[in-house]
């Protein structure tokens, strides 16, 4: 390993990951993408991705900036529909059903597949109402207080806010707001939670709290996280997918290079490009 690579991931660090990553063997594939390509207008953003996400695992998507990681993530819950020029080709099978098929309602898709965004985006409401809003809208109004408390507890936020539930969510710190967004997402009992660089706007302590949470949450949910921080992926993910930018005359688009159990990606990557990235030889 080059001495100057600050981003080099030493094998020792992997071995000291919080716990041994779980295997995908005999697990159900919650998602299976087949030839998934996303373009914005004429520009291709992500090309031909075949990837399976397995139940109750944390799957990380890593890669250099601009390689379509977020675009890929957002196509899993049809958030790309909100961008008028976005076009999706290929299939995204959710428990065997193509979420882009006829008769599929994006509203139902998003109810089952929640999302936490890069920048914490709590509603301009009280802490309680932030969590309760989704529950009310979706008709899960029985034992509202109990559901809110459960969600906030699962997000490791309950103790910090239980005495100020009616205060505005904007009074919380960045890290707390992000955990509130997480609580809000899991309150509606999704199947999957997608996290788009959830800690990139947070300080290290808040980041580590979020990472700890993921270890707990994966028992109940399936998690997919996009991160530009390799060490984070190494710490939290059971499986890691490496995307890179493939250059063409018209610019470039993202492609999936390699997808495997996290230790393997970081210590014995099969593809040269993966090795180049994880050892920090390119940005």
């Amino acid at each position, binding site marked *: 390993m080059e001495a100057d690579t600050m981003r080099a991931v030493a094998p020792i660090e992997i071995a000291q990951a919080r716990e041994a990553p779980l295997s995908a063997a005999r697990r*159900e594939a919650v998602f299976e993408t087949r030839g998934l390509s996303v373009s914005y207008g004429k520009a291709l953003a992500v090309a031909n991705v075949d990837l399976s996400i397995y139940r109750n695992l944390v799957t990380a998507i890593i890669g250099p900036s601009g390689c379509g990681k977020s675009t890929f993530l957002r196509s899993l819950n049809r958030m790309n529909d909100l961008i008028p020029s976005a076009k999706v080709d290929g299939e995204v099978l*959710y*428990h*065997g*059903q193509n*979420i882009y098929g006829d*008769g*599929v*309602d994006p*509203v*139902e*898709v998003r*109810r*089952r597949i929640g999302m936490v965004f890069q920048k914490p985006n709590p509603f301009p409401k009280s802490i309680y109402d932030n969590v309760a809003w989704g529950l009310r*809208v*979706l*008709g899960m109004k029985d034992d509202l207080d109990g559901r809110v408390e459960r969600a906030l507890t699962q997000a490791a936020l309950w103790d910090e806010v239980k005495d100020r539930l009616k205060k505005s969510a904007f009074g919380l710190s960045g890290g707390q707001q992000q955990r509130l967004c997480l609580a809000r997402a899991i309150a509606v009992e999704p*199947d999957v939670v997608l996290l788009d660089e959830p800690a990139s706007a947070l300080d290290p302590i808040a980041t580590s709290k979020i990472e700890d949470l993921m270890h707990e949450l994966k028992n109940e949910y399936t998690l997919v996280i996009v991160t530009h921080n390799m060490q984070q992926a190494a710490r939290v993910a059971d499986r890691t997918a490496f995307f890179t930018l493939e250059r063409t005359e018209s610019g470039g688009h993202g492609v999936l290079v390699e997808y495997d159990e996290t230790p393997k990606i970081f210590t014995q990557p099969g593809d040269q490009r993966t090795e180049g990235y994880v050892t920090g030889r390119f940005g």
Partner: protein
Amino acid sequence: MAVDVAHFSLTPSPRTRRRKLVNLLMQALATIAALAAVTVLAVVIISVAQRGASALSWDFFTKTAATFGQSGGGVANALVGSLVIVALATVMAVPVGILVALYVSEFAPPRVADLVRLVLDVLNGLPSIIIGIFVFGLLVIGSGQAAWKGSFALAIIMLPLVARATQEVLALVPSSLREGALALGASRWRTVLGVVLPTSVGGILTGTVLAVARAAGETAPLLFTTSIAANTVTWDPRQPVLSIPYDIFVLSESADPADHARAWALGLVLISFVLVTSLTARLLLVRHRKRLEG
């Protein structure tokens, strides 16, 4: 592994279907509202165009009103009168408006700038009839009506519009431009007059055009300041003159259908003028913005 397909179903549940129905209903209501607004616009413009077009003629534009009882005649005096009044108002309002905007944007301390901006916004919101009564009390009582007094009232209405538009465009001038000029050793006043203002001309023009469009259509301020006029075409601002909006006002309240026809025709002229100037202003704005931000 048994997968509970129903649990993960992606087709809408009955509850979701109901929610989507509500969603659709709301979308329909919003669309109807927008449609209603556009329809009213169309109805008004078509009414004016249809009824006004038939009364247009060469006489209409060149003759003054016919004497009582006779048919024919035109509105030449109102056309000329409006031209005089609005032109004079523009001359009064634009320089002052630019100066006020310059003060707020280049010289005023923040608190003072806020105050002046508030004053301008309040002036803008004053009912125009109050401004007419003000000018009446200030200038007309004791000395009689005159076109320029009407212009003064219109200028008060135009002032906030010109000042605000100028302010907005001055704010768009990048500070790097100002700093560059000052760094070269140019003085403040040279920077403002030689660099900042010329860059803002487009926006100032747009603001002026919009203010003119607004002033041309105002009736209330003219009621008290220039309404009792002789039935001749006069270019003298010291005389009270007839104006297009005031003429429409008077004709609309008459019982004579011939008067109504003339009112529609005048309305057509006025609307056409206002629409053309508004569109021009919009195009100017787009072009100017492109140039500044491009």
